[in-house]
């Protein structure tokens, strides 16, 4: 039971990062590798500031701003310097590794201060892992609400249009460059915020903790889309949360089968590859077996 509660808690918290990723990968159609650097950036920033006595919520807010700055660097290289999207993200991600090491002063740091968001506001009185669920739900409610409201404003619609059809957006007078900056910055801000949250939950920050975060985020997005295809945008954001939980449950079940935890990243990659291939497999299946009868 405790394992299941922990899985739900992990699914909820990681879905915050997936929502951040959704803004670049799906709304802006921008494959942003910055995420793998912004995630540990948020973690190291939060742990460092909490260790120096800062309020955990304020530390996470600063992590969000730092994430936005990382996004700004990528957006600048991509939108202003015309460096290809993938390369711009990789360059920022690589640079952030050194930045994170500089902030932390070493490769990892434990959170020794008692204060963190998981034991404030009476959350420590909840049964084990329920604080993660409670906090995840609160944070997701706020982020989904704000994001949905934003996407329904003029700026939000302009952001969607930019990712959807840049030629059309520009010909309607939308400043597509600004939109790319806004999208990439918000996305990385949310990712860094999640990094700070995960660091507090794990009790440490590590400069390598971003490796594979894109796979985790994308898995949540893709699983959500496979389960709930063709839904409006606001519902799609909620499907990411469901996708994230399902992904964690699949991982838990696989590990329960006795796989080595060292194979976790490999298993994650295989799950994502399967999810991505699912629409093709499904189409092929229906082509081969029409109305339950094998088509020759």
């Amino acid at each position, binding site marked *: 039971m405790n394992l299941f509660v922990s899985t739900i808690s992990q699914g909820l918290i990681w879905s915050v990062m997936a929502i951040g990723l959704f803004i670049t990968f799906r709304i802006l159609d921008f494959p942003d590798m910055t995420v793998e650097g912004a995630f540990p950036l948020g973690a190291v920033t939060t742990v460092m500031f909490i260790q120096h006595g800062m309020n955990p919520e304020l530390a996470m807010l600063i992590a969000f701003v730092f994430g936005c700055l990382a996004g700004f660097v990528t957006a600048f290289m991509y939108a202003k310097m015309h460096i290809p999207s993938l390369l711009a993200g990789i360059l920022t991600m690589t640079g952030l590794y050194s930045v994170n090491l500089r902030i932390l002063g070493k490769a990892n740091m434990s959170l020794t201060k008692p204060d963190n968001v998981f034991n404030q506001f009476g959350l420590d009185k909840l049964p084990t892992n329920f604080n993660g669920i409670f906090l995840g739900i609160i944070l997701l409610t706020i982020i989904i609400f704000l994001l949905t409201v934003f996407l329904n404003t003029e700026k939000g619609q302009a952001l969607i249009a930019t990712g959807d059809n840049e030629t059309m957006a*520009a010909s*309607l*007078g939308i400043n597509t460059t600004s939109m790319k900056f806004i999208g990439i910055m918000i996305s990385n801000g949310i990712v860094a915020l999640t990094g700070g949250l995960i660091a507090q939950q794990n009790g440490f920050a590590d400069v390598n903790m971003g490796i594979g975060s894109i796979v985790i985020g994308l898995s949540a997005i893709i699983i959500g889309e496979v389960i709930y295809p063709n839904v409006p945008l606001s519902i799609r954001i909620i499907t990411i949360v469901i996708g994230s939980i399902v992904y964690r449950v699949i991982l838990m079940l696989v590990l329960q089968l006795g796989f080595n935890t060292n194979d976790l990243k490999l298993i994650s990659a295989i799950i994502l590859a399967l999810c991505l291939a699912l629409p093709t497999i499904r189409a092929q299946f229906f082509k081969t077996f029409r109305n339950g009868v094998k088509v020759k």
Partner: protein
Amino acid sequence: MKPIMEIDNAVKTIYNDNENLNILDGINLKIYPGDFIVVLGTNGAGKSTLLDAITGANQLSSGKILLNDEDITNKNLAKRSQFISRVYQDPKLGTSPRMTVAENLLLAQRRGLPRRLRLRHLKENLPKFEDFTSDLPTLDNRLNTFTEKLSGGQRQTLSFLMAIIQKPELLLLDEHTAALDPQTSQELMDLTDKVIKEKNLTSLMVTHNLSEAVKYGNRLIVLKKGQIILDLDTEAKAKLKEKDLLEYF
């Protein structure tokens, strides 16, 4: 009468196969209010480059473009879009597929409006779109349909509506019916002609179709190798026969 747009010695040069090539080679054109100019030319004549230069999608190598006496040569696409709208040949280029028909129209309606007019204000005007689209059988009752679910003809009709929903100073039609089947193409062309006349829009239409070139518009120009080789006024165009154009191709 003062022209709305004046294109003065427009040159666009590109470097191709180790030599400079003038895609536009000294274009001079005055567009007057209410003009419906049909632009003809073979592939590579410079038609789309001319439209790109007018919208700001492509900057000129030399020459000037004036809009209502204001030099807009160095203004970018987004700034010019307040006054100039364009319908592309590819129906997919003019609309946002993951947005609904209504959302696309709302976006188009904000073009050229002051920033203080927010989406909420525009949404209040949504019934107007319903009145508008009910005249168009292809888009009737489809306001909440995602654009990616529409057919090519419906998407192109939507692109056209988006281009005219805020009356532009200049409407550019870039072979906007070329990618459609003959019936849909004819319907959209008739709608185009009707709207241009009713709203007294100033327009520039690129086409390859000689019968369209003869039937529609009040002026005609023929482009060849980046130069205007024929410029017919209203009177001359009225006497034009399709076979007269064959010698230019």
